[in-house]
């Protein structure tokens, strides 16, 4: 593979990862506030359909993106209402919403199946795009890809560098302590869940109007992406930078699968298509195994130097979730 093809390939990886980056950042914000939005797999499909339908009808591509965000926000609002106000299980509500949103998009999207729709055009940044290597890699994309770069940095800076971001960490970590510091915990949780939902909703039209333009019902190839994004959120340890890294890693592996397929004739295409899923399980295994009790016991039985090193490696891999994730807050 020559450099030219490689750079185009890698640029394609950045492009293909954009929707996953949006979804992962949205979920990270939501979970940082203490709310798991498990509806992601369905709401990405529904917002992809809705965004495509609106852009197709109005011929306005930006209305399509806005619609997607609105759908994601609306689904997240239901999750927020059920878990924060009604104190029901976040997992149960999220799971049901996943299925409902998916079926709803297949039902309502029926008339738009296979229609030729608008597609976001690419936007080279004058000057920067001409820099060798870097230019074609980073600066010959469409608007959404640029946004995905920007949002990673914004989300990171917000959580770790700003005052409201510190409070966001606080409400997910120890809501009672945030409350005595003046935070309206439940209102903030609503805010971040809905904001995160809007970002997740942005992922949908980024597929249907850009990365995988069009709406093809059950064969749109979107079913499963939300689940991948949920596990990347865990892999990312609730840090936007590490989460974005996970998203790019995933897109890279998918691309490698495509590139390598011709050179691996023995492996049927079905196997390579599902390769991300066992990989997802493996990464979760690495991130979580340090928490298992038997590992601790085995470690204790190891000789001194081996124990030290193994414990260190496991601790470095481990990601611990916000302490109040999934726990409703009530002021005494």
């Amino acid at each position, binding site marked *: 593979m020559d450099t030219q093809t490689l750079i185009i390939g890698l640029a394609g990886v950045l492009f293909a990862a954009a929707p996953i980056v949006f979804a992962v950042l949205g979920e990270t914000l939501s979970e940082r506030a203490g709310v798991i939005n498990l509806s992601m797999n369905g709401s990405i499909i529904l917002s992809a359909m809705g965004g495509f339908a609106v852009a197709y009808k109005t011929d306005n591509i930006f209305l399509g993106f806005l619609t997607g965000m609105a759908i994601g926000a609306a689904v997240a609002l239901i999750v927020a209402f059920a878990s924060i106000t009604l104190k029901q299980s976040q997992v149960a509500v999220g799971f049901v919403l996943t299925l409902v949103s998916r079926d709803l998009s297949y039902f309502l999207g029926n008339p738009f199946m296979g229609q030729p729709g608008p597609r976001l055009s690419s936007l080279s940044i004058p000057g920067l795009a001409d820099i060798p290597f870097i230019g074609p890699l980073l600066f010959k994309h469409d608007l959404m890809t640029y946004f995905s770069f920007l949002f990673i940095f914004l989300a990171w800076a917000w959580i770790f*560098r*700003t*005052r*409201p971001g*510190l*409070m966001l*960490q*606080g409400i997910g*970590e*120890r809501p*009672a*302590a*945030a*409350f*005595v*510091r*003046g*935070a309206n915990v439940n209102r903030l949780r609503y805010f971040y869940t809905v904001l995160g939902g809007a970002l997740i909703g942005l992922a949908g039209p980024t597929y249907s109007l850009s990365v995988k333009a069009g709406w093809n019902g059950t064969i749109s190839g979107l079913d499963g992406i939300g689940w991948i994004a949920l596990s990347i959120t865990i892999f990312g340890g609730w840090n936007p930078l590490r989460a974005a890294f996970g998203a790019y890693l995933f897109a890279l592996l998918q691309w490698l699968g495509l590139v390598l397929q011709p050179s691996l004739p023995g492996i049927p295409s079905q196997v390579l298509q599902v390769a991300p899923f066992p990989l997802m399980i493996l990464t979760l295994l690495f991130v979580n195994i340090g928490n298992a009790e038997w590992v*601790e*016991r085995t470690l*204790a*039985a190891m000789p001194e130097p081996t*124990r030290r090193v193994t414990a260190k490696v496991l*601790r470095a891999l481990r990601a*611990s979730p916000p*302490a109040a994730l999934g726990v409703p807050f009530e*002021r*005494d």
Partner: protein
Amino acid sequence: MNVELRNIHKHFGKVHANNDIHLNIPAGTIQGILGENGAGKSTLMKILSGFIQADSGEILLDNQPVIIHSPADAIHHGVGMLHQDPLDFPPMRVLDNFLLGRAGGLFPDRKTVARDFTRLAAQFDFSLDPDSYVDSLTVGERQQLEILRLLWLGARVLILDEPTTGISASQKEKLFETLRKLAGQGMSIIFVSHKLEDVESLCGAVAVLQAGKLVGEARPPFPTKKLVEMMFGREISLGARQAASSGRSVLELRGVALEDIRFQMSGIDLDVRAGEVIGLAGMEGSGQGAFIRACAGLTRPVGGRVVLNGRDLTGKSYHVFKHGGVSFLPASRLEEGLVPGLSLTEHFVLAEETRGIFIDRTAGHKLAEGRIKAFNIRGTPASPVESLSGGNQQRALLALLKSPLSLVLLEHPTRGLDIESVIYIWSKLKERCKQGAAIVFISSDLEEVLQYSDRVLVFFSGKVSKPLEASKTTVEQLGNLIGGKDWESLDLEKAHVKK
């Protein structure tokens, strides 16, 4: 700041938690609030600090009536509260904890904040590193951080809820010194406690609450005996100390080494004898938790041997230990001890040996009725365990223990219980000792440790003392030891320690 409470009432369902409370605290006073658990102290303080609202009544600050909607609102009015378990964010840095909650621009100016922090800390001679993480601090240091934060936010009234539990003697001294200094500057300090001794040595005025009512006030010199009577509404005798029987060894630890993220302990040797009580003292997270869990087989020591009744069980699982006659009662009753959603009957059925496949409901019901009576539990066989009070939950846990037992391990067996339950629970535990069981327990209440133990082990950041005779040890000595002082006076040849 002058604080006045008038006609405060608060109901929780049928319980009248605060019943017509009047209290006047002039500026510069250290006001003690005494009362046993459940007397209504916490409710009153939550009302003053804005956590909850009174059903009726008035709060006046410097003679101005105020309505306090929330804790944040309280601090605007100059009222700050330090909670027993400091309300901070363990995985975040000290400085971030300090600045969170103070209004300001989008990007906090950490440099200025750090300067303010260092200046304030120096004023009280606190040595806190602003860049360290809160989960690496002791409870005492976390209290110091909270005090600094509240002062920085402009607190003129400081409420402290049971602040002397779980801190060392020197930290307590420093805390008292700080409070006196603050009172000298015209602040009002409200010191909530059930420890007479602390209140007497610190406070300039004391109010006693009992069953929701303000039953008396006093100024120094305090009439100790009368205060006790007011607190409990009756005379209390704690029961005489019983001599340690020196039975055979139940548990032998031989050169045991333990490891935690925070510390390593090694070379622990101990014989626990049948019929004796061993108290483990130390600030939270000093190693006593790891120690007791290793005795239970819940964690595996990284070195040494654990021998139970002559059988070497090193590295065996908790269930093997349990089968061998060890029982472990965790500190958090509803999180680790009992199963919310299941009834008392179901708990007793679970704890029994099984007979066949199907559960005999009537037998289970009968069993539960018997145990409820024997352990004086306020509840019915069908009561879900989460509906019981803390004291009754602890009684239920004791009622779940099998007979006979060799070793009972308890974490904070009486934390948060009223005095009656405390006495009852210890009487039940002492019965176990008479039947030949040994007891090892953790408590942050040093008086409890000395009152009920035969021998005491002190833990300080991963160091273990040799066993001390409880009858020859004072609260002061223990307080110094848990704070890391006077260790050179101990004979450390048995438990030699490397940090």
